[in-house]
């Protein structure tokens, strides 16, 4: 009952948000809003990928941004060399998926524990960061694409209209594309969860031993969901590359930490929650950055405190806690109103 209510709520929220984002916002036509909107949407796709593999698959990747950044860089390099941005995007997402599959093979077939898994994924992301960060020199050029070290690749190509390689998309089109990609990824996640594969993944998260004893090779299913998560993070990375340009910050420690925060704040075990959490926290960061609080509004400081607080004090995440509180208030209100008809004695009991 409450589950279906919530999932209906989630759908409604997504539909409303998509409508607002795709119809209302572009009418304002403000360029900064468009660019920020594309960035937020790219990050939201990243958050979605972690929401899927952690919340449903129980696979806690501390380094989910590795796939985000990798896809971004592959897109930029392939785009600069091939000239065909659509193909480059495809290659980028495929590489992110392939990389996730390779890493997943090592982790799941090694049957490493959750603690190890988190650390290994984060380490992979940080090594990518260190590697890219130090590729400033001339020698680090792949074909027509200089890797650019800590500066990133400012010449990251922007998507072109399909079949018209000279027609670069405008910021509002990139914006629409990013938000559209977010919605599509969300729907894909919903679909996958509803399949036999998705149900098995959830069962494995609930009890891997029992799933094995029922005939599910848990390694295979974890690898599958992890690879899908890598691909989705890759879509986010491509969207990000189009919104700004690729740079090593895409897979640094802060980005990885932020994804975790978005998912925790938004609520583990939901898909819409982390997306909302992402938008909320990014807006908060932007707002904090614009304040002059004598330094005390440092985004790291605030995010760190929020994360620690959420883990220590709220086991369910901010949004589900708020939602739960709302539901309870709603139930109480309904009981109060319905009480005279159905439950006189009950209502009497309530009063001291």
């Amino acid at each position: 009952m409450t589950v279906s209510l919530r999932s209906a709520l989630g759908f409604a929220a997504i539909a409303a948000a998509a409508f607002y984002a795709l119809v209302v916002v572009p009418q304002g036509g403000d360029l900064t809003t468009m660019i920020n909107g594309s960035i937020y949407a790219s990050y939201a796709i990243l958050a979605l990928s972690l929401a899927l593999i952690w919340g449903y698959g129980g696979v806690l990747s501390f380094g989910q941004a590795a796939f985000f950044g990798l896809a971004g860089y592959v897109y930029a390099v392939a785009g600069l060399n091939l000239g065909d941005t659509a193909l480059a995007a495809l290659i980028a997402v495929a590489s992110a998926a392939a990389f996730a599959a390779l890493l997943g093979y090592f982790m799941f077939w090694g049957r490493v524990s959750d603690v190890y898994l988190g650390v290994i994924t984060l380490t992979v992301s940080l090594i990518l960061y260190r590697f890219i960060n130090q590729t400033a020199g001339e020698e680090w050029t792949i074909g027509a694409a200089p890797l650019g070290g800590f500066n990133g690749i400012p010449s990251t190509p922007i998507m072109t209209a399909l079949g018209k390689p000279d027609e670069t998309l405008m910021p509002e089109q990139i914006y629409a594309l990013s938000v559209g990609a977010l919605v599509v990824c969300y729907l894909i996640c919903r679909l996958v969860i509803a399949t036999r594969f998705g149900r098995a993944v959830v069962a494995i998260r609930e009890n891997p031993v029992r799933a094995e004893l029922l005939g599910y090779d848990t390694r295979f299913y974890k690898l599958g969901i992890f690879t899908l998560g890598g691909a989705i993070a890759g879509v986010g990375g491509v969207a990000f590359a189009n919104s700004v340009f690729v740079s090593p910050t895409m897979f640094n420690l802060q980005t990885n930490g932020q994804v975790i925060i978005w998912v925790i704040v938004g609520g583990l075990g939901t898909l819409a929650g982390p997306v909302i959490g992402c938008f909320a926290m990014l807006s908060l960061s932007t707002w904090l950055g614009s304040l002059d609080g004598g330094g005390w509004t440092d985004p790291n400081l605030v995010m760190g405190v929020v994360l620690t607080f959420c883990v220590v004090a709220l086991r369910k995440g901010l949004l589900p806690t708020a939602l739960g509180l709302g539901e309870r208030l709603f139930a109480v209100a309904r009981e109060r109103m319905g009480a005279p008809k159905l439950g006189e004695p009950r209502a009497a009991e309530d009063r001291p």
Partner: protein
Amino acid sequence: MTAAAPLLEARDLVMRFGDVTAVGGVSMTVGEGELRCLIGPNGAGKSTFFKMLSGQLRPTSGAVALRGRSIVGLPASRIARLGVGVKTQTPSVFDGLTVMESVRIATDALLPPQLARRRADEALERMRIPHLAGATVGLLAHGQRQLVELAMVVAQAPDLILLDEPAAGMTGVEVDRLGDLIVELARSSSVIVVEHDMAFIRRIARTVTVFNRGQVLAEGPAAEVMADARVRDVYLGKDAA
């Protein structure tokens, strides 16, 4: 595949944990449709023996064959697909799923959707828990969770069913019903049951194997084994009914 090969043949199974020898060379042959009870004091190695059969543990040495085919070293999921169903000693269920979802996970592993649906319904019927289909497993009472786990095992339709202390935590009525159920299961599968309750064992078992300190102490028809002086010694001071 030779017709002569028994359903299960375990030979000289040994399991050591560091210095502890949990199972020290056990052989057992179980035929099609056999119902066998496995008894023995706590720590005798019964659960460890089951874990080696189901692939949760890889034996230190020894051989296990299912219809003549070696299964040592296969992952538990492969062994499950080859027709071995296990109810573990501590109930192992999907707390976050509903009863029906849990049983469907069991049937979906092997069957096409329409068939899976029917098989799941049947499993709930056999456990007499269709009314719990929509209930979340984590919120059920202990005995009911045991039934849910049994329903999952039954829904797999295994050829060999291993039940590790299935009656633990059940009420008298539930235990009686469980006895009927196990006898019924043995019509279509082979069943090995670990139990402590002697009255229960007398009711259901034809063959009994007694474990002690990782070894087979005695094996034979129920009445005969229970009359054995050594077996009584092992159980002395325990609930020897």
